[in-house]
């Protein structure tokens, strides 16, 4: 499945339409499930998801892009964070938001 995912995705993270059509037509339901899981894993590796609350600064995006070279940055607004930024790259999450801080504080208070 990993090889199939590699075939389906172009180096810039786009989907090769012809290969995608072949996959949708040729794979069984169970194979499609496995393909989906492998595709999600691969996309998580290639795309850095950035959630920002409040004003977006170009400097912040530059810093994040420099931290994850060669990966596509997918930036979106998420006001539920309160303020700050939350970066998801692969299975690593860097939470520098007020929402994350409050959650951490609640966990700490709960353990005392």
């Amino acid at each position, binding site marked *: 499945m990993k090889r199939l995912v590699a075939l389906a995705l172009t180096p810039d993270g786009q989907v090769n339409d012809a290969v995608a059509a072949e996959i949708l037509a040729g794979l069984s339901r169970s194979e499609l499930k496995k393909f989906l899981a492998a595709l999600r*894993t691969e996309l998580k590796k290639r795309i850095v998801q950035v959630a920002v609350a409040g004003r977006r600064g170009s400097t912040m995006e530059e810093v994040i892009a420099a931290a994850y070279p060669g990966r596509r940055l997918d930036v979106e607004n998420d006001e539920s964070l309160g303020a700050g930024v939350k970066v998801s790259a*692969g*299975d690593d*999450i860097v*939470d520098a938001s007020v929402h994350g801080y409050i959650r951490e504080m609640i966990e700490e208070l709960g353990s*005392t």
Partner: protein
Amino acid sequence: MKAEDLVRQIEEKLGSLAVRPEVANMGRVVSVADGIVRADGLSRAGYGELVEFEDGRRGLIMNLDEDFASILVLSENNSVPEGMEVRSTGTPLSLQVSDDLLGRVIDPFGTSLDGKPLSVTGGSLVALERIAPGVTKRAPVDMPLKTGVKVVDALTPIGRGQRQLLVGDRNTGKTALVIDTIINQRSRDLGLPQVVCIYCAIGQKRGSIARTVAKLQDEGAMGYTIVVAASASTPASLQYLAPFAACAIGEYFMEKGRDALVVYDDLSRHAWAYRQISLLLGRPAGREAYPGDIFYLHSRLLERAARLNEAGGGGSLTALPIIQTQAGDISAYIPTNVISITDGQIYLETDLFNSGIRPAVNAGLSVSRVGGKAQSRSLRQVSGLMRLELAQYQSLAAFSQFGSDLDEATQKRITRGKRIVEILKQPQFSPIDDLAQTVSIHAAGTGLLDEVPAEKVAEFERRVMDHLRTGSADLCARMASGAKMDDATVKELDAAVAELARTLR
């Protein structure tokens, strides 16, 4: 906590607002099967690392595959929903240990099982899995750990820091022997330092655990004892971790310079729990369906028993693992493994037990590789002779049925052997001190009881110490230290013992 304290804590937190980004390595539950969870992600998690599920439950990473991590759920309720988030913690599974645990019954995570609140203050956070002390940190095993059981202390003495296996079929008195050993630590025989005892019950019925705890309480032994319990009704994960938790607690006391004793009751059930986990993890099954690393599982646990040198604090951790055999087969997989790991074994036999010889220790198959170094000088002096007499008796015992057809020397050996067997019998929960052991064994081994009828040997033993303490108090005082007896002391002892023996003929 008071409301004002909470307000103050929040104010302090908010007052020192320095937002540090929280970095987490996440995964997602893909499949769940009987306490084993497979999760994707967790690319930075390590083997044996503690992970935390979204609902606060914890797990232990047991396998790392290319795309998945297999996690052992560490909770009695192991139904984890598919899709739940799981995060790595970067820490190994640990337990908070301090003197507060003494007298308590806990599970492998340190949660109270005796119905009383438990708050462990001070002490240390100790990892359940640790590397055993290296050779440069160890000292030779030379200080006795008195069990109070004559046959053990005389024939297979246990030293502090030793690993001595108790092996035998069910209902042969294995647990009774270790309970006696724990009870005997109350008396601090020979003026030795107090031993902290940790009794680890693995896969036992809750009723049996409750009976053991009640017995320890009745005998006043809980003050220096901790019971770590994972009963038969708990998930295999808890049964697998229980001996490691008990060992970690023992290590804590050892590193504080104290002497600790850990009883693993029993490692057969521990092996069953690990076999169950391994099969669910999909690891290849080997002999008797046990996984390939079953030997390493027990060797890494038992290697942690040690006597530390002075630089390391001089503490010790003695391990008494128990193995239950099936139909007396000590050549089965797990018994042979543990026999080869330990420094000796005490073999208990059903036939001996049923014939009234209790403790049912088979002296021929039992051995202590530490030997006399872990005995008081006086007991070593008298037990050597008795061992020889007993071995000769056992080789001649089969001929005893011929009675008068035997020559006089053989009949004499059989007579003496019968007295030795009688003197080695001992009721349960009545450990005796080194002095009484030395006197009894000396009396039987040197033939002072040859004229006493075998059925009166028990009576002799009941009376001998009172007889000595009233008639030869000075002799008792000299012998109490456990030092080697000189010729004059031996003569005096012989005379005093013979005097009592004459009254019982």
